[in-house]
């Protein structure tokens, strides 16, 4: 192998090694734990592979693995399936809300004078400079019965002081939290798709007899679809597994799989069941991820 070929091989190998060490191996460990049984031990499951114990012991340990935890998680008697469904539902609704809020913002940004676009872009990214956790905490201060929102509405005389809005600890608060936190992830891909669009296309449409609103649906919207898909998936995928927002803003009846996973792991101390929940969550999300990659691929080929 020449030096040049070795160099090329190294450049290609580094990202794969990275993925192997930080994604595939941890995933295999989680997957193995999901096939184990809970035990009062350190670590709290059996079997534990001990390579020093020899080949026979390893084969015996392998025989002790089972898919019982998956049966437990997928049984209708437990609330896991409901939690998966509820998570998908909440993430889905949030994604639609994000699109409804994000599209007009991205559109306005893309049509703003060129000189102020970098500033607008900066403003969209600005919230990232504060910790995510602190920003979600701040919403408690806004949404609580004695919070800023209620104080304002009462001061304006819209609400009576003895009947404040009960938003905190409801699904509504979770939607607000998700829409607020994920908005940049929706706006940025939409903006990049809309900004690329050649405005003379709209002039051409008008020239051919197409009024502006109709031109939006026939030209702008279809050409922004790659951005719509990218934005929706960038929001939907992490929103399904969201833990912090439902935990801080949601009520006790807000059922989301991230919360369930956390309870299973740190309250019930069941590493094995929480691992099974995590592996199944990954499977649920693989579908949209593969879809997303397909869309990206198509967009690349369209060039």
């Amino acid at each position, binding site marked *: 192998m020449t030096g040049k070929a070795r160099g090329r091989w190294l450049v290609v190998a580094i990202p794969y090694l990275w993925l192997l060490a930080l994604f595939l191996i941890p995933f295999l460990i989680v997957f193995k734990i999901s096939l184990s049984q809970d035990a009062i031990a350190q670590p709290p499951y059996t079997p534990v592979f001990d390579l020093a114990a020899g080949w026979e012991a390893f084969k015996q340990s392998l025989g002790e693995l089972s898919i019982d935890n998956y049966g437990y998680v997928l049984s209708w008697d437990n609330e896991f399936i409901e939690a998966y469904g509820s998570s998908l539902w909440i993430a889905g609704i949030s994604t639609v809300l994000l699109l409804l809020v994000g599209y007009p913002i991205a559109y306005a940004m893309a049509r703003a004078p060129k000189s102020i676009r970098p500033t607008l872009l900066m403003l969209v990214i600005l919230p990232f400079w504060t910790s995510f956790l602190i920003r979600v905490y701040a919403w408690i201060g806004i949404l609580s019965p004695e919070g800023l929102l209620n104080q304002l509405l009462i001061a304006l005389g819209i609400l009576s002081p003895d009947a404040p809005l009960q938003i905190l600890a409801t699904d509504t608060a979770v939607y607000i939290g998700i829409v607020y936190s994920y908005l940049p992830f929706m706006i940025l891909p939409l903006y990049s798709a809309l900004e690329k669009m*050649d405005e003379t*296309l709209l002039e*051409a449409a*008008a*020239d*051919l*007899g*197409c009024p502006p609103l*109709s031109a939006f649906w026939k030209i702008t919207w279809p050409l922004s679809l790659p951005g719509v898909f990218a934005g929706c998936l960038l929001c939907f995928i992490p929103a399904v597994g969201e833990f912090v927002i439902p935990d801080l803003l949601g009520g006790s009846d807000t059922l989301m799989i991230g919360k369930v996973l956390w309870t299973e792991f740190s309250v019930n101390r069941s590493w094995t069941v929480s691992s099974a929940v995590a592996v199944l969550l990954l499977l649920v999300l693989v579908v949209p991820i593969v879809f997303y990659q397909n869309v990206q691929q198509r967009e690349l080929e369209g060039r």
Partner: protein
Amino acid sequence: MSAGVAEKTQKTIGGIRRKFAPWNDPSAVPLIRFQNVTKRFGDFIAIENLSLDIYEREFFALLGPSGCGKTTLMRMLAGFEEPNEGRITLAGEDLVGTPPYRRPVNMMFQSYALFPHMSVWDNIAFGLRQDGMEKGAVAARVEEMLKLVKLGQFAKRKPHQLSGGQRQRVALARSLAKRPKVLLLDEPLGALDKKLREETQFELMDLQMELGMTFLIVTHDQEEAMTVADRIAVMNHGKLVQVDQPAVIYEHPNSRYVADFVGDVNILDATVVSVEPGLVTVRPVAAPDRLFRIAQECPAKAGDSVAIALRPEKLRVELDPPADTSVNCLSGEIWDIGYLGDLSIYHVELPGGSRVKAAKPNLTRMVERPISWEDKVYVSFSPDAGVVLTS
């Protein structure tokens, strides 16, 4: 000027165009009228109090450097810009205030502006569907257009799968599909290479005759304007400088600006010596020992400073002084020679230091006494070759 001066166009369409000159007919009603139109962008005046009439079936060119307002003028006709003052009428109807999607004109964009997510077929059908034309009629018209631009087998392709020339044809078909009263062409051939551009210019002319439509083309390429247009409007700083047939613009420019912008030209400063009906005598500043007689009616008086425009191809370069002493003549030395194959370009330095450019066709392969560097030569031209410019 008499009809029949548009030599270049005769070749393809002959007699019909030879007789076509509605602008000389006082009873003809213009199709498009710009009346005292002014357009400002902030402090910048793009179009200043401009009036222009364009007639039905005319192929009209707006010619000028970038920033002269020609595109703005066209965009006002399409409806993308509204004038600040003045009226624009099309077939007697006031267009000001009508949005672009209700105007009976279509435009072919410089960038083509093809819809990238639609096939060639859908691009061409877009305007027809917009009008609510029924399916069968849309299909028939699209097929007709595809045939017209010879793109039948590409109907299902997307724009990015086509070559530049093919995209140009799709854009043309799309803008023609609705049979607009006026087709606007914004630098339509700018993105094509030279050979394809020249071919397409003749195709455009044939197409315009065949369809009997009015074409308005915006271009900065004077050759293109001369080739395709019945009349050319030369623009500068938001104003019309000269509006006339290509041959008139070329042979009788009304100003230094037009003479300089259209074609190659030598401009010599001169002083008027005497003015008679049909003849002006001037003394060139660069060669005060000579007098030029130029056959032309001229508003200048004796003593006025004027400019003489001399086209290089109208100058003769010879090693011997001209036998006919009545022709205008300058003497000088060859400074530079450019051999182009069909022509040779000679740069002749006059005694005063200024230079004139003369083009000489290479009529034979061998010349007995070729003109060479530093040769003393005589540059002569007949009285009807030059033009006296007073502005």
